[in-house]
C-alpha cells in the first residue's frame, strides 16, 4: 500500500468522496478500516454496521473521503437502512460508489449492482473473497465480468489489503467519467420503462437533473412508496402507471415488482454465466460439515448449551482466579505503602485518603476490568468473528417468537452481556420499530459485564456458583416475562426471520484481541479514572458526613422496603453513573472488601437482583435517547425500576419465608 497516507493535511489536493456500498457481511467495514486506518467494528454476521461512518485517506495527491454504509440487499425503500443508503446516494454527495461484491454469492450481490446502475451512478466493483470462491470451485473471470457489466472490476482481499491500491486508482480515474449503462431487460418491460421515462422527461415534475428518469420510471413501476412522497407532482402520472402495471401483470401473471426483480435476475444470470465457471465439485468441505452440525436439530442445541455454558463458566473461573491474584497482590502492596507512609510521619487521615481513596480504587478497578470485562469481550469477539451468532439465532428463533421477536434478537441480547450501549444500538438489526423498541427495553435488563461483576463479586463469591447462575436464570425469566407483556401491549406488526447465514470462519487471534481491546478501552480510560475519582470523593466526603445523609435519605427504600443495609445506597447512586463503580464505591464507603461483614446472604441476593435490574447507566440512557427518543427511554427506565423493586421485594419475602 505504498501510496497511502492517512488523513494528513496537504494543500492543493483534489477532493473526492467515495461510498462503500454492498450486501451485508461482504467486508465493507474491513475495507473501510484498511483504507482509513480507523476502527469501525467488524463482525461475521449480517447487520454489524448500522450507522454511516466516515474517514479520509490521501492517495496519489487526492484527498479521498470514504463513507462506510450499512449493508443492504436492495435499494427498494422497505427498510430504514436502505432508505438511509439510498438517500445518501441520491443526495449526489458521493462522486463514485465502490460496490463490494462477495465472489461466493455473485448472483445475489449483483442484484444491488444492477439497481445502482439503474440509478445512473458512477461505479467501481470490488470483488472480495475471491480466494474463498476459488476454493469452492467458483472461478470468476474479472475481465469478462467487467466487460459484461461495463464497469471496472477489481479483485481485492479486504482483510490482507491486497488489490486496494488498484481499487483506489480505479476509483480516482473513474470519478468523473460517464456513469455505466444498465443492462437491458425484457422487451415489454423496456417498452414501459421508456414510455414512462419519456413522460417524466417531457413534463416538469420538479425532479433534480442528476436523477435518471429511467430510474424513477422503474421505481414507479415497482410501486415504490417513497418516490411519490418525494416528488408529489409525479402523481399526475398515476393513471398512466396504473394502466401500464395492469398490462404488465396481465402478460406476466405476476406483480410488476416481481416482474422487474425477475428481469434483473435473468440479466444477472446471463452475465454470471458468461463470466464465471462453476466447477462441479460439490464435495462437502470441513467447514460445511461443521456448519451442518451447528444447526442440527438436536446436536445444534447441545452445542449451543456447551458454547454459552462454557463461555460463562470459563469467564467466571478464569476471571475469579485473575481477580484473586490481583487482590492478593494489591492488598500486600497497599499494606506496605500504608506502613511506609505512616513511618514517614504522615497524618493517618491523609493516609486514609491516599490509600483508601486512590490505591484501593485503582486496585479494585483493575481487578474488575482485567478479570471480567476483558474476558467477556474476548468471548463475545470470538463468537462474533466465527459466524456462530446467526446459527444461535436460527436455533432460538421459535423461542424468540414467544417474545414477539425473532431469532436475530438473540444477537443484541448476547451483546448485552458485554455492554448495554452497543447492544441498544444493534437492536437496529430488527426490521420493525415495534421489535426494536421491545428489544431495547429487554436488552438493558440483561446484566452487562459491569453488572456481572456485582453478581460474581457478591453472589458467586459468598453464596457459590449455583446461586450466581440462579441470578442469571432469574434475569432471563424476567426478560422473557416483560417481553411477552410488551409484545401483547404494543400495537404494530412484526415480521418473521429472514437472515443470511454467513460462512463459518476460524477467527484471527490478532483481530479478536484488537477488537477486545477496542471494547475494553472505554472501561480503562473512562471507568477507571471515574472509579478512582469516586473513591477519592467518598473518602473525602466521609469526613464531612455528607454521604451519610444522602444514604440515610435513601434508607426508607433500601432498608425499609428491600431490607438491605443502609450503606448500599452508595451502590445505587454510583451505579446510575457507571455500573462498575457500584461495588467498589460500596467497598470504599463501608471500608471493607468483605461484603459478608455488612450483608446477610438473603440481603446479598436481594441486593444483586436489584442492582442487575434497576436502571440503565448514564451512557446507556444517552444511547437510548438518541435511538428511541426521550419518551421511550423514560418508559424503559421507569419500567426497570419498577421491575427491579418488585422482583427484589418478592425475593426478600420468599427468602424470609424459607430461612
Amino acid at each position, binding site marked *: 500500500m505504498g501510496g497511502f497516507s492517512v488523513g494528513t493535511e496537504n494543500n492543493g489536493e483534489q477532493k473526492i468522496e467515495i461510498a462503500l456500498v454492498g450486501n451485508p457481511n461482504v467486508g465493507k467495514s474491513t475495507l473501510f478500516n484498511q483504507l482509513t486506518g480507523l476502527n469501525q467494528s467488524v463482525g461475521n454476521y449480517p447487520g454489524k454496521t448500522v450507522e454511516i461512518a466516515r474517514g479520509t485517506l490521501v492517495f496519489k495527491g487526492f484527498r479521498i473521503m470514504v463513507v462506510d454504509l450499512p449493508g443492504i*440487499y*436492495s435499494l*427498494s425503500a*422497505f427498510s430504514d437502512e436502505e432508505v438511509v443508503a439510498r438517500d445518501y446516494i441520491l443526495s449526489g454527495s458521493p462522486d463514485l460508489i465502490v460496490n463490494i461484491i462477495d465472489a*461466493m*454469492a*455473485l*448472483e*445475489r450481490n449483483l*442484484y444491488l449492482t444492477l439497481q445502482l446502475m439503474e440509478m445512473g451512478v458512477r461505479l467501481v466493483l470490488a470483488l472480495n473473497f475471491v480466494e474463498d470462491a476459488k476454493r469452492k470451485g*467458483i472461478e470468476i473471470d474479472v475481465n469478462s465480468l467487467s466487460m459484461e457489466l461495463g464497469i471496472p472490476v477489481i479483485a481485492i482481499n479486504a482483510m490482507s489489503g491486497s488489490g486496494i491500491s488498484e481499487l483506489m486508482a480505479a476509483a480516482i480515474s473513474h470519478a468523473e467519467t460517464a456513469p455505466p449503462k444498465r443492462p437491458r431487460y425484457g*422487451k*415489454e418491460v423496456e*417498452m414501459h420503462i421508456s414510455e414512462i421515462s419519456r413522460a417524466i422527461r417531457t413534463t416538469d415534475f420538479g425532479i433534480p437533473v442528476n436523477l435518471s428518469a429511467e430510474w424513477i420510471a422503474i421505481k414507479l413501476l415497482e*410501486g415504490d412508496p417513497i418516490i411519490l412522497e418525494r416528488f408529489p407532482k409525479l402523481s399526475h402520472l398515476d393513471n398512466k402507471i396504473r394502466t401500464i402495471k395492469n398490462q404488465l*401483470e*396481465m*402478460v*406476466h*401473471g*405476476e*406483480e410488476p*415488482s*416481481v416482474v422487474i*426483480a*425477475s428481469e434483473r*435476475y435473468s440479466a444477472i444470470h446471463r452475465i454470471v454465466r458468461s463470466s464465471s465457471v462453476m466447477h462441479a465439485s460439490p464435495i462437502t468441505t470441513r467447514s460445511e460439515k461443521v*456448519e*451442518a452440525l451447528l*444447526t*442440527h*436439530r*438436536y446436536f445444534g*442445541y447441545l452445542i449451543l448449551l456447551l458454547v454459552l455454558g462454557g463461555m460463562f463458566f470459563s469467564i467466571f473461573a478464569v476471571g475469579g482466579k485473575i481477580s484473586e491474584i490481583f487482590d492478593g497482590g494489591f492488598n500486600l502492596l497497599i499494606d506496605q505503602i500504608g506502613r511506609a507512609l505512616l513511618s514517614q510521619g504522615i497524618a493517618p487521615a491523609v493516609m486514609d485518603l491516599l490509600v483508601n481513596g486512590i490505591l484501593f480504587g485503582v486496585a479494585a478497578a483493575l481487578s474488575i476490568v482485567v478479570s471480567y470485562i476483558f474476558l467477556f469481550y474476548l468471548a463475545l469477539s470470538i463468537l462474533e468473528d466465527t459466524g456462530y451468532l*446467526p446459527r444461535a*439465532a*436460527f*436455533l432460538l*428463533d*421459535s423461542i424468540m*417468537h414467544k417474545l414477539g421477536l*425473532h*431469532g436475530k434478537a438473540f444477537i443484541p441480547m448476547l451483546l448485552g452481556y458485554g455492554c448495554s450501549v452497543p447492544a441498544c444500538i444493534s437492536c437496529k438489526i430488527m426490521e420493525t420499530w415495534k421489535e426494536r423498541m421491545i428489544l431495547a427495553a429487554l436488552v438493558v435488563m440483561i446484566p452487562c459485564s459491569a453488572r456481572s461483576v456485582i453478581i460474581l463479586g457478591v453472589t458467586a463469591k459468598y453464596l457459590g456458583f449455583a446461586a450466581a447462575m440462579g441470578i442469571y436464570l432469574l434475569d432471563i425469566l424476567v426478560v422473557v416475562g416483560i417481553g411477552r407483556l410488551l409484545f401483547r401491549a404494543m400495537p404494530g406488526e412484526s*415480521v*418473521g*426471520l*429472514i*437472515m*443470511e*447465514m454467513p460462512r463459518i470462519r476460524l477467527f484471527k487471534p490478532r483481530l479478536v484481541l484488537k477488537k477486545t481491546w477496542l471494547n475494553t478501552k472505554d472501561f480503562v480510560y473512562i471507568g477507571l479514572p471515574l472509579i478512582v475519582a469516586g473513591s477519592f470523593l467518598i473518602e473525602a466526603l466521609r469526613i464531612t458526613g455528607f454521604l451519610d445523609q444522602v444514604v440515610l435519605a435513601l434508607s426508607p427504600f433500601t432498608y425499609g422496603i428491600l431490607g438491605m443495609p443502609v450503606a448500599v445506597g452508595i451502590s445505587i447512586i454510583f451505579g446510575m453513573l457507571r455500573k462498575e463503580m457500584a461495588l467498589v464505591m460500596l467497598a470504599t464507603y463501608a471500608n471493607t472488601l468483605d461484603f459478608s461483614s455488612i450483608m446477610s446472604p438473603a440481603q446479598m441476593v436481594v441486593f444483586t437482583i436489584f442492582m442487575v435490574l434497576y436502571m440503565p447507566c448514564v451512557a446507556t440512557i444517552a444511547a437510548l435517547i438518541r435511538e428511541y427518543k426521550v419518551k421511550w427511554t423514560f418508559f424503559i427506565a421507569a419500567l426497570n425500576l419498577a421491575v427491579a423493586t418488585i422482583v427484589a421485594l418478592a425475593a426478600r419475602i420468599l427468602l424470609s419465608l424459607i430461612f
Partner: protein
Amino acid sequence: MFSIICGAMSFLFGRKPNGLSMNKDGGSRCSAASSGPEAKESSDDGEEHDLGIINEYYRLSKRRRYSLEELLPLSALEEGQKGKIVLAVGGRKLISRLCDLGLIPETEVKVLKKGLMEGPIILEIRSCELAIGRGIASKVLVKPL
C-alpha cells in the same frame, strides 16, 4: 374490434393475448379448487394454512402453469429436498424482501435444515444460505423437484 386488440397485443408482446382466456380458465379452475377434495388431498400433513395458501394462489396468480396437486408450501419440503419457486403470498414488504434475496418464481431452492418445533428453515438459494421463518416459508409455494 376485439380481434384488432388481440392482434395488437400479440404483436406488442410477442405472445398470445391470453389475458381474457385466462380469466375464463381461472374461473373454472377456481370452482374446482373450492369444490375441495383435491385441495385437501394435496395438503396431506393436515396443516390448515396450506389450503389457505393454495386457494390464495388460485385467486391471485394469473399464470397457472402448474396444477394444484403438483404444488406444496416450501415449509412442507423435507430436509435435502429441492423445489422450484412458483409464487409467494404476502404483504408488499415481505414479497419485496424475498425478491431482493432472489426468491423469485422459477428459482430452484433446496431445503438444508428444518428447525425444531416450527422453527425456521435454512435454504440454499443462488449458492447462498438463507434462514427464513416457518411462517414465511409456508407462504411460498413450490413445485417439488
